[in-house]
C-alpha cells in the first residue's frame, strides 16, 4: 500500500469483509475483523511511508501482519493512548487521526502485538479467534 493513498484506503478491508461473508463467518467475527482491519489499513495510509498488508483466514482464526517502511513510532505507549495522534491537520479535517486506531484494533483483537522504534519499521500483528456457533470445544492456541 502506498503512503497517502486515501483513494484506495478501506478496499482491503471491504474485500476481506465480503470474503468472510461469503464463507459464512459469524457476524460478530466479521464485525471485529472489519473494524480492526480498516484501522490498520488507515494507519498505513496516514502515518507510514507505505507498506504491506497481509491477512490469513483459517477456520479458527484471522491473522493480520502489517509492516511498513517507517518512519517508526518513537513511543508506542503514547500511541496506544486513546486520543493521542500525530496526524496532520489536513488528515484530521478528513475525520482521521482521532487517536482511536490502535486502541480500536486492540479492543477487537484476541492477540495484539506492535513493535517499532524511532526511524524504524513498524510491525503490527493481530489476530481474531473464530468461535463457531454450537462449537463447545475449547480452542487451543500456541502463544506468540
Amino acid at each position, binding site marked *: 500500500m502506498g503512503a497517502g493513498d486515501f483513494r484506495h484506503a478501506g478496499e482491503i478491508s471491504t474485500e476481506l469483509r465480503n470474503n468472510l461473508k461469503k464463507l459464512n463467518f459469524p457476524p460478530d467475527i466479521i464485525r471485529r475483523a472489519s473494524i480492526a482491519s480498516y484501522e490498520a489499513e488507515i494507519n498505513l495510509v496516514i502515518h507510514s511511508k507505505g507498506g504491506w498488508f497481509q491477512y490469513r483466514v483459517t477456520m479458527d482464526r484471522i491473522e493480520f501482519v502489517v509492516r511498513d517502511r517507517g518512519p517508526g513510532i518513537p513511543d508506542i505507549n503514547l500511541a496506544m493512548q486513546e486520543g493521542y495522534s500525530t496526524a496532520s491537520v489536513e488528515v484530521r479535517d*478528513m475525520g482521521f487521526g482521532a487517536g482511536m*486506531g490502535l486502541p480500536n484494533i486492540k479492543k477487537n483483537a484476541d492477540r495484539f502485538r506492535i513493535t517499532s522504534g524511532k526511524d524504524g519499521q513498524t510491525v503490527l500483528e493481530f489476530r481474531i479467534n473464530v468461535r463457531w456457533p454450537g462449537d463447545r470445544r475449547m480452542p487451543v492456541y500456541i502463544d506468540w
Partner: protein
Amino acid sequence: MTLVEIAEKLSLETFTANPDLSRPVLSGYASDLLSDVMANAGPGAVWLTLQTHQNVVAVASLKELSAVILTGGRRPEDATLKKADAEGVIILGSGDSAFDLAGRLFSLGLRSEG
C-alpha cells in the same frame, strides 16, 4: 422505519442514482470522526456527517449502514458518489445542520442504539 419514510419526512435530497429506499433504518449516529463511526455506529444506522470524501463509503459499507446523510447542504464528491454506487452505499443530503437533523430523527423515534 425505512429510508423512504425518513427521506420523505425530512425532505432529504437523494444523491445515489437508483437507491433502494425500502432499506430499514435501525438507529442513528452523528459523527465526523471515521474511527468513532467504525467503533460505535450500529448496523443499519443512518450516519449524519459533513465528510464528503471517498472514505465515507468504505466506512458505511464496512459497517453496513443504512445510509449516509450529508448535513449542512454538503454534496458528495464525484469520486465518492461513483464509489457509493459501486458498493451499494446510499448517500442522502439535507440543508439542516447535524444538530437539527439529529433532533428531527430523534423525534421520529430513532436512537443511537437500534
